Each structure stands twice: as C-alpha cells, then as structure tokens.
C-alpha cells in the first residue's frame, strides 16, 4: 500500500470522528467541513509519525476541538457575552427565559428518528450551553478544564451545562423519575 493509499484509509477511518467533534461544537456543517479539512491537512504533514501512533485518535480529537474552539472564539465572540447577561442577572426568571418551551419534539423536528432528534436538539442549543455540554459529554473534559479552555468561571460552566441539559430535557421530554429508577 502506498503512502497516499495509507493516508486515504486513515482519512476514511477517522473522518467521522473528526467531523462529529467539529460539527457538535460549531453546529454548522460548512464550518465543520472546513475544520475537518484543516485537521487532516495538519495530520498529513505529520503522517509519518502519526500513522503508527496509538494515540492518533486523541491527537485528531484534540486538534479538532482546538480548531473548533478557536473558530468559535474568533467568529462568534458574542455568544459568551449573551450568556454572561443571564448569569449576571442571577434570577431564575432570566434563566427560564433561555429554556425553550416544552413543545412536542415530533412537532418541532418532524419525522426524525431518535438519534437525529437528539442531535438536532443538541445543535439547536445556544452556543453558550452547547459548547460546554459537548466538551463535557463527548470530549470528557472536567468542568475546571472547560472553564480554563473557554476562559469563563467554573460557576458559569456549571450553570451553562445545567441549562443545556434542562433545555434538552424539555425538548426531548425526558422523564427524570424513570431515568432515576433505571440507574438505581
């Protein structure tokens, strides 16, 4: 197998993972495609050392996450500002204002299957809630690390993630009691 063929196989093996990371963080297909391309261009430059590395998946995810966060901070600096407004106000009414109405998910998202529905609900979250939620759930970052990466306070990370989960619960009409009995 030539180097070009090896890289093509490498690309096909990891493109979904890189694209998912970028797509969930940016919630924008064209931006996610650009970021994925940039990640693999960088991987190509270091392919000789990456192709046999056992941590190549982690490397790709880290680069995709970093590029996505750079992209968000560069082009969408407003999202943290808008989120900050709600945090600074501190009252529950302001927090409630961010939650979407408890509508019927089928009505909102049409005939999608469950995964598409959850994915769409996740991408519909405001960036201030979606980004920390994705970093925590999909990238496995701790709250402190998220706060450091996003340059926001730990309290704000907790509040944003809570709001994101609460918004998802409403959108997806999750039943907490049943979930609790399942995990106990």
């Amino acid at each position, binding site marked *: 197998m030539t180097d070009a063929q090896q890289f093509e196989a490498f690309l096909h093996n990891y493109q979904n993972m*890189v*694209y998912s990371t970028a797509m969930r963080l940016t919630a924008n297909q064209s931006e996610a495609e650009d970021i994925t391309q940039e990640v693999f261009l960088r991987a190509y430059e270091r392919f000789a050392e990456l192709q046999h590395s056992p941590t190549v998946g982690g490397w790709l995810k880290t680069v995709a996450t970093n590029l996505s966060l750079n992209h968000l901070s560069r082009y969408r600096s407003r999202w943290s500002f808008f989120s900050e407004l709600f945090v600074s106000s501190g009252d529950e009414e302001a927090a409630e204002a961010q939650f979407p109405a408890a509508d019927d998910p089928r009505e909102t998202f049409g005939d999608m299957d469950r995964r598409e529905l959850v994915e769409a609900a996740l991408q519909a979250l405001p960036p201030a809630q979606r980004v920390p939620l994705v970093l925590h759930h999909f990238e496995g970052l701790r709250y402190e690390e998220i706060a450091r990466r996003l340059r926001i306070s730990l309290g704000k990370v907790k509040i944003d993630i809570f709001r994101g989960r609460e918004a998802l*619960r409403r959108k997806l009409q999750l039943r907490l*009691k049943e*979930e609790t009995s399942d995990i106990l």
Partner: protein
Amino acid sequence: MDPQYEKQLEAAVRRELDALGELAAPPELAGRILRAIHQPAAPLPWWRQSWVAWPGALRLVSLAGLFAVFCGLCYAALLLVQGFAGWSQSSGWLAQMTTLGRVTERLAGTVVAVLGHPGPGFMFAAALLIFTVWTACLGLLTAYVRLVLRTVTN
C-alpha cells in the same frame, strides 16, 4: 439547584447523548480533503503578490512612473521650503508680532543655510529620508494597484 434533580437530569441527558455515536461526514468531504492535499494551491495573480514578483515590464513601467512622481514630490517640497523661507524673511511684521514667527523665521533660515552648505550628517539624513520616501511610495503603489485590480476583478 437541587443536587438530586441535577443528578437525575445528568443521567437522563447522558443516556441520550451516549446513544448518539458519531455523525457521518458528508460523502464528498474525503474527496475534497484529498484534492486539497494533492493539488498545489493556485498561484496568486501578479497584482496580489509583492512588487518584486511582478512581471518585468510592469516593474519597469511602475518604476518609471514612480520615479516621475517622486521627482515631482521632491521638486514641490524644495519649492515649498524655498518659498516659505523667502516669505518668512520678507514678511518682517510676522517676526515682530509673535514668538512663533521668530522661531519659524530662524528655523527657515537654518534650513536654507544647511541646504547651502550640506555636511556629511545632512547628506546621510537626506539619503535616509529619500530612501524612506521611496520605499513608502513603492509600497503605496503596490497597495493602490492591488486595491484597484481587486475592485475591478470583483
């Protein structure tokens, strides 16, 4: 926030998110990435490159034009200095009326004296000034051409 409620909420959301798996990249994305890797980037048009990379004929024409503009600017500056020196010397009322006038008169006199008897320091400073103005003109010309052609081509 109720810690028990938070735990229940986290568990419910985690279950949904864990079931998601990876998103499928668009089918055309891999081809696009491979093309970007294997195809060299298209070269920039000459007018978007630095002046030294312009075609030879264009560089000659731009140099000639720039030289004419530069000589015109130098001549205009010389005329301005001479004219100002002559005006400040002949208009004695200005020197008598204000301190500023006296300072200006002395400054203009110094400039005229220096121009009449240039020393090595003056020659060096003049050469430096000419070089700076020249490179600034060259930079401005490149930027101007780039701006005009970008507007025209868009």
